[in-house]
């Protein structure tokens, strides 16, 4: 087994394989085990936090096959073959991602519990809308609760990160802004 094939060797359970932050991983765990718990307990990636455990707070947000998901609601069997990105996958060789830098510069993190989820929701948004409007930022982060900052600085951080990146001008079509009543 090489460094890229770190595995929990409980042979009692079938092997489930997926990629986390570019590394192949294999785990032998109960198929109903939550992806959140597999990341934290089996792969020791404790950057992903548990908040509510019911998909309401977004603390456990990760990106799976280029979609944002609450890892507390994903049975790990459904991650078979998936490409997963966690907050540990944002910084490259010790260099912070522009989003992380922007959160630092703009006071986007306070107690820190919501921050990994906020970063992943923001990363998902910017991957598809490199220059989002404030409304789009607020919708992209609507499932992520923060109990300290009042959100203003978080939204400002994401906007700053978007400004700081030289991005691909190809924009995806905007999803109709339909959150407003009516």
């Amino acid at each position: 087994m090489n460094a890229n094939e770190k595995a929990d060797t409980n042979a009692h359970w079938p092997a489930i394989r997926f990629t986390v932050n570019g590394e192949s991983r294999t785990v032998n765990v109960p198929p109903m085990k939550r992806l959140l718990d597999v990341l934290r307990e089996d792969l020791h990636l404790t950057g992903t936090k548990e908040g509510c455990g019911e998909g309401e707070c977004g603390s456990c947000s990760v990106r799976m096959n280029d979609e944002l998901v609450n890892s507390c609601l994903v049975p790990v069997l459904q991650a078979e073959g998936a490409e997963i990105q966690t907050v540990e996958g944002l910084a490259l060789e010790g260099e912070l991602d522009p989003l992380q830098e922007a959160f630092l510069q703009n006071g986007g993190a306070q107690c820190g519990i919501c921050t990994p989820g906020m970063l992943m929701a923001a990363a998902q948004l910017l991957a598809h809308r490199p220059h989002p409007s404030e409304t789009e930022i607020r919708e992209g982060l609507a499932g992520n609760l923060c109990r300290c900052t009042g959100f203003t600085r978080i939204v400002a951080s994401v906007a700053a990160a978007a400004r700081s990146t030289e991005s691909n001008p190809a924009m995806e079509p905007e999803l109709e802004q339909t959150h407003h009543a009516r």
Partner: protein
Amino acid sequence: MRGNAEMHELVAPGSLGAVLDLLAAEPGQWTPIAGGTELMVAFSAGRLNAHKLVNLWGIPDLRTIEVTPHSVAMGAAATFLDLRRHTVINAEFPLLARAASWIGSVANQSRATLGGNLANGSPAADSSPALLAYDAEIEMISVRGRHKVPYSEFHSGYKQNVLAADELLYAIHLPRRFARHRQYLRKVGTRRAMAIAKVALGATALLEQGVIREIRLGAASLAPYPMRLKQTETALLGQALTRETVLAARRALIAEVQPIDDIRSTAEYRRRVAVNLLEEFLLELRREGSRL
């Protein structure tokens, strides 16, 4: 008490056919799981009663959205983001696209499926008023074959439906005939994101020479299950949109709905808001006509 993953079996037969074989071999024993936004919440809280689960996530046949000249067929495991991103759904079924945007947050919409919303059968289901207003049909599948029922006949009681023990939801069909209709959907909840509806009303109507030729009204949180307001529709069909008609429709709605007091709201509040939503739609219809 936390859920224990070792206490639940979860299998992934892979293909739709293999899932149906399993359901046929042991009818009623297996609980299908797609995006998990309902069942995994119960699991985390240690109150998931299902001990044998069969995976539907990742089965392509269940996630396709097929457009034909007369209808759009949405696979039961299409996610709400799939619906929001679909050009034809946005253009011709804007109420459904809007309802999809109300489902939790982006991280819920990426996983929650249309079929899951219906199979779960919450009286407050976000997609239901739009589907009722669009006269959706539900297609079910088993090893015995496929068949359809109108969505308005799918729910049969609180969290109960007409699916047989060996059946799966297969597709939800929308007829492409609402381009000329005035369309309306409004949800009244606590806040924009993540909130469950206190009450919601969806509607489509066709007005010709000042007379209501067609009308469909779908309501959430006004009965034990999402409900088409057929008596209210009857009070309006063939009528000119006068003050008397509006008042008669308000009375029909009050007589027809069965709201309850619960943690989110009261029956009285729901009744009052529901008649006001209906009136708002009817006044809009009278003022602007249907999109002729």
